[in-house]
């Protein structure tokens, strides 16, 4: 019986741990599918976390907190889009600098909020009936709103990418923008839209950290989750459903680390905290070494700015 309780608790915690990574990864899938690699995810997450928390504390409204997060991360998406899509600057450098800038901005915003508690946070809302199912009920249906939204977003994202005209256009732009352009698809509009959408998802990932996961503000609280999300996207071969499975595995590893520690297994907490990064590196090595799959499924125009004069 104790085994079952432990397993249930672990799986439940794994979903919570997976949520911010999956939000960021879903967003990055959309951006990369359109041919834009946004390495600003980590920074946008931090800004989203700080903005959401700051607004929630000051307005005492969760809704305003989330809206502020969405607005600010949309602004970051627009800045990134303008520099990389319109002005065609290097996506890699721009993304990295955006992360540095975002880290600074979030530290600036958050300085006054260290150690504060928000009067409003995302509470767990057990789903009626469903949460009463033995084991699975607690694992899946005893979470907060943002997790439930994610349950809908995963299949919805998959459906949009693979089964709709918009998704077809999105993939066309990421594979061969010149051909998509010739077919009358507005390459710039598509890229702007999905990069901004992705950016908002990254912001929500941050808001989840500061308003549900922690819930508090800590400098650099995303702790590399944005980078893990980018690796997860490759692991998932740009497929939202595979990203969800991957995020669960990452979340599981994260939680197991904590559980081992709590049980007094004699590994230093510092080594346990290295685990997610090391495992991410190992995963990256395996997917690179084992198959050409990641390479073949990668959007062909990824990181290449589109220039109509060079068609």
């Amino acid at each position, binding site marked *: 019986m104790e085994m079952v309780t432990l397993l249930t608790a672990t799986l439940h915690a794994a979903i919570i741990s997976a949520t911010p990574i999956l939000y960021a990864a879903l967003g990055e899938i959309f951006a990369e599918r359109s041919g834009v690699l946004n390495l600003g995810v980590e920074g946008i997450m931090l800004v989203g976390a700080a903005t959401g928390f700051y607004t929630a504390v000051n307005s005492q409204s969760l809704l305003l907190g989330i809206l502020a997060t969405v607005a600010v991360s949309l602004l970051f998406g627009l800045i990134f889009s303008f520099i990389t899509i319109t*002005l065609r*600057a*290097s996506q890699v450098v721009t993304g990295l*600098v955006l992360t540095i800038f975002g*880290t600074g901005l979030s530290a*600036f915003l958050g300085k006054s909020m260290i150690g504060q508690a928000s009067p409003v946070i995302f509470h767990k809302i057990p789903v009626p009936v469903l949460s009463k199912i033995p084991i699975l009920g607690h694992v899946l249906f005893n979470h907060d709103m943002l997790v439930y939204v994610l349950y809908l977003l995963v299949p919805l994202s998959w459906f949009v990418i693979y089964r709709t005209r918009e998704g077809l256009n999105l993939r066309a732009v990421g594979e061969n923008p010149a051909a998509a352009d010739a077919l009358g698809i507005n390459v710039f509009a598509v890229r702007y839209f999905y990069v901004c959408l992705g950016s908002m998802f990254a912001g929500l990932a941050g808001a989840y950290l500061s308003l549900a996961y922690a819930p508090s503000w800590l400098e650099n609280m995303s702790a*590399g989750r944005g980078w893990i999300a980018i*690796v997860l996207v490759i692991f998932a071969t740009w497929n939202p459903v595979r990203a969800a499975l991957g995020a669960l595995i990452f979340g599981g590893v994260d939680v197991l680390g904590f559980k081992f520690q709590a049980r007094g297994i004699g590994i230093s907490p510092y*080594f346990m905290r290295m685990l997610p*990064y090391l495992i991410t590196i190992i995963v990256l090595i395996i997917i690179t070494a084992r198959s050409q799959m990641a390479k073949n499924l990668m959007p062909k125009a990824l990181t290449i700015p589109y220039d109509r004069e060079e068609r």
Partner: protein
Amino acid sequence: MYILDKLNEGKCIRFEKRLSVPPVTYLIVPVVSVILVLLLGGLFLALLGYNPVEIYGILLNGAFGNTYNFTETIVHAIPLMLTGLGVSLAFKMGLWNIGAEGQLYFGAFMATGVALFFHDLPTPLMLTLVLTAGFLGGALWGFVPAALKVFIGVNETLTTLLLNYVAILWVDYFIFGPWKDPKGFLPYSKVFPQSAMLPVYPGTRIHAGLILAILAAIILWIIIWKTTWGYEIRLIGENTQVARTAGINIAKNMLLVMIISGGLAGLAGMGEVCGIIGRLQHNISPGYGYTAIIIAWLSRLNPLVILLVAIIFGGLNNGGYALQMVGLPESIVTMLQGAILLFVLGGDILTQYRIKIHRRGCGV
């Protein structure tokens, strides 16, 4: 085509792509960017209720206001120079070494190991050893992602980045655990013996790391622009395919460049512990390895320009501490630094175009 038609008066104004970019535009874009960022930053500060002129005054004074502040600026510039030079060499070859932060930490870790465990060596030998250890520590942290890239093809941007987190936790493990000073309460290592400390310029905290950085810049400049090896590095950076066809050993070059790149960052870490603090502790770098990326890019990967930009950025970092007195977090400096590069990145495309006025209309 990006045309602005102005058909009135029979004139036509349009943007045309330049065939070659005049060198002076390389200066105009950063200067205009800095001005724009200061204006925008000023607006931001004004909105928060601060007087921008006063804040910039404090920043400038904190950075360059008097001899003491200036020497402290140089102290902050040293790790920025070394890490900036390190990442610039890798960037020159098209390798995204984002791991200078971790390489700095691992260099500091190795140097600390030597300083603590060979504490009774004579000074010259000890200094040689800590220097070597610092370089090797950073080099090792650069070599791992390079080897993964060369032998398996693993993306180095992500591995170098993730290894930053690992290196910082690694150092944490030692200063909270095995290397913690038994007499101290804080997570510090024991104090290094005097023999492991770099010479300093009397009356200041400027240490010999400055000489290392200047030497490194000159050597890198000569390598990149005056040797066959430098030509190979540049060719690989511009077109790997052509370089391969020309028979250049890309694998060997990548490994070597990442060893040097990481090694320089490792020296920066060694400089922090053996030049300034005298022991290993938490937070030896406020993100020098990340600022280095901005510096390298702003300097257009020119080693000599990097020295200069590192002094300016070191000044910003140093001036940032003065801002804390008026209750502003120093993270505003990170924002300014990042914003400058964002503007330069965006502004670069403008250098590729020129405005041409056709007096007789667009048809001409």
